[in-house]
């Protein structure tokens, strides 16, 4: 370790500590922010990229609003659905009550036993009304049971949207019947204690609200949405989404003068809207962290550059008495490493404190220590890179400056 000169470098550094301490402080803040920001961003990215259970890449939603006084909702949706199903490239189309992952929808509480009064045993579910092609149009996978049959589809009701049959997600069934691995055929009850039989189990599906922890509690009923506004879900064959959307606009746009085609939108539109806050937060944190790291790197670079330019003669003297170029590079990298490490030590404490505060204040999961280790390595690397150029410059100083500089 002799040639690393740790002790003399440290003691010389300590004699000129003001600038070094400022940079170390900057590094500490940089580390604390970096680690927590990356951790939060990672959680947001994970949230955004969770599997939805649906074939979101090929789904299209269509909204129609009947406005004419003599508008015949029943005839209208039947005609629209027939038209949609006849468009080439359409795999399936269904009337649907709400758009999953759109931030709008309906939910109800359900119970395993009729007349259950314990609110803790009421299991909430995102409810959707679909027709016999609904399962296909959503692109969901049934792990047990079957989709609805055409004759099971009930007409719209203005009152309550339940039915006596349902297709539910595994997660919903598990909450309802925690001890029963096979819920198919079992009966559960709505808020009015009306029995509902499970005819199909969905492997996994997301409901309406992306930040709700019961997002994967979904209950599908065989019923047509109440008019006069209709929403249709259409699933295109892979790669044909755009063509199908154009075709829908052309076919449905003026097929019925009694209603307005409000929009035709891909599923991705709604997902983007729902995750906008999460995305913006992630982008914001990444930008702020990036700027902070750039400023930190600049601080390290500035300190190293200053140290080199104020020590030209010292460097020449070291070279004259036998330091190789490599020794000079190492001298400055070691010195810089000491500064970053001082910052890193303080920064670790800061990162843990910020992480603790976030976890208490925003109920975020506690900071994962791997992130701290990663952050420390990243800061060390940034420090090395930032000091590299000044260190190289120092090593290029000629030993002759020892005799030439006064």
């Amino acid at each position, binding site marked *: 370790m002799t040639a690393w000169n740790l002790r003399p470098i440290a*003691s010389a550094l300590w004699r000129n500590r003001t600038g070094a301490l400022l940079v170390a402080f900057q590094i500490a803040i940089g580390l604390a922010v970096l680690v927590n920001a990356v951790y939060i961003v990672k959680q947001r990215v994970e949230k955004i990229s969770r599997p939805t259970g649906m074939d979101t890449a090929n789904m299209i939603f269509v909204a129609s609003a009947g406005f004419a006084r003599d508008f015949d909702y029943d005839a209208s949706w039947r005609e629209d659905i027939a038209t949609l199903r006849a468009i080439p490239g359409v795999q399936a189309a269904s009337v649907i009550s709400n758009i999953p992952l759109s931030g709008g929808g309906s939910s109800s509480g359900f119970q395993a036993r009729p007349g259950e009064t314990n609110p803790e045993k009421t299991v909430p579910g995102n409810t959707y009304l679909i027709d016999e092609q609904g399962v296909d149009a959503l692109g969901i996978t049934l792990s047990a049971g079957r989709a609805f049959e055409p004759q099971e589809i009930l007409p719209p009701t203005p009152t309550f949207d339940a039915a006596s049959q349902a297709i539910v997600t595994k997660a919903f069934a598990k909450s309802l019947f925690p001890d029963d691995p096979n819920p198919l055929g079992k009966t559960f009850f709505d808020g009015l204690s009306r029995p509902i039989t499970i005819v199909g189990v969905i492997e996994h599906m997301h409901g309406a609200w992306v930040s709700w922890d019961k997002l994967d509690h979904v209950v599908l009923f065989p019923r047509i949405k109440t008019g006069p506004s209709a929403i249709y879900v259409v699933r295109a064959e892979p790669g044909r989404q755009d063509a199908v959307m154009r075709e829908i606009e052309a076919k449905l746009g003026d097929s019925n003068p009694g209603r307005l085609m409000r929009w035709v939108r891909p599923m991705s539109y709604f997902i983007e809207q729902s995750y906008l806050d999460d995305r913006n937060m992630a982008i914001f944190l990444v930008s702020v962290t990036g700027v902070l790291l750039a400023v930190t790197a600049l601080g390290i670079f500035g300190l190293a550059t200053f140290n080199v330019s104020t020590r030209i003669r010292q460097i020449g003297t*070291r*070279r004259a008495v036998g330091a190789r170029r490599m020794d000079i590079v190492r001298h400055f990298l070691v010195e810089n490493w000491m500064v970053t490490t001082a910052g890193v030590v303080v920064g670790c404490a800061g990162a843990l404190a910020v992480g603790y505060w976030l976890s208490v204040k925003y109920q975020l999961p506690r900071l994962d220590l791997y992130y701290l280790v990663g952050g420390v390595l990243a800061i060390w690397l940034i420090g090395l890179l930032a000091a590299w150029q000044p260190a190289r410059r120092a090593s290029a100083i000629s*030993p*002759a400056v*020892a*005799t030439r500089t006064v």
Partner: protein
Amino acid sequence: MLEMNGISKIYRTDLIETHALRNFSLKVGDGEFVAVTGPSGSGKTTFMNVAGLLESFDTGSYKLDGADVSRLSDEQRSRLRNEKIGFIFQSFNLIPDLDIYDNVDVPLRYRRLAAKDRDQRIKSALEVVGLSSRMHHMPSQLSGGQQQRAAIARALAGDPRFLLADEPTGNVDSLMARQVMDLLEQINEMGTTIIMVTHDPELARRAHRNVHIVDGQISDFRPYEPRAEIEAAAVAHGPAPMTMTPA
């Protein structure tokens, strides 16, 4: 010990070429004490830099300690400087952020000597220059003469074959200058070859031999009679250890 033949060194800037050394040849024997004199700008420092492997040269050959050193890599030159050559600078060149002990330690660390060995060398070098009691002082806490003695300790600690001093007394008063000179003589007597640039005729006279440089070349004209010749003349025996090759 040192043998230069037909060395030339040209500094090129955008405007002019300076021939700092022209066809410069010089031999210095083992254990000699040579004083280099000459007017300002004549090439003394350039000669010292070339001799000390701080700078390269354009033509000619240079043998140091019997080995050709004209075509060495930067790393090999660093190593030779570290092991064979000690430098003493006009403005001391102590590192201001290190105490005297650590300053003397600098070349020893680059030689990767073990801690115990370094400690011994540092202490005995500081003893020789009479600064043992000041080893934990910072350079700024010492007088100019003391700083120069500390710098001499740094040059000595590595046991160099060969000591190069460019106006070592240029920044100290005449009393201190004499002390520094005493010290150099003492070191020379222990066997170290010394080449010293000086403007002080009195100090130059104390060397074995004087080399006078004018305009990048060794001049025949000798302004001072060096001690060795005076002694040789007086005692009339013992050949002066010098070989001067005027260009």
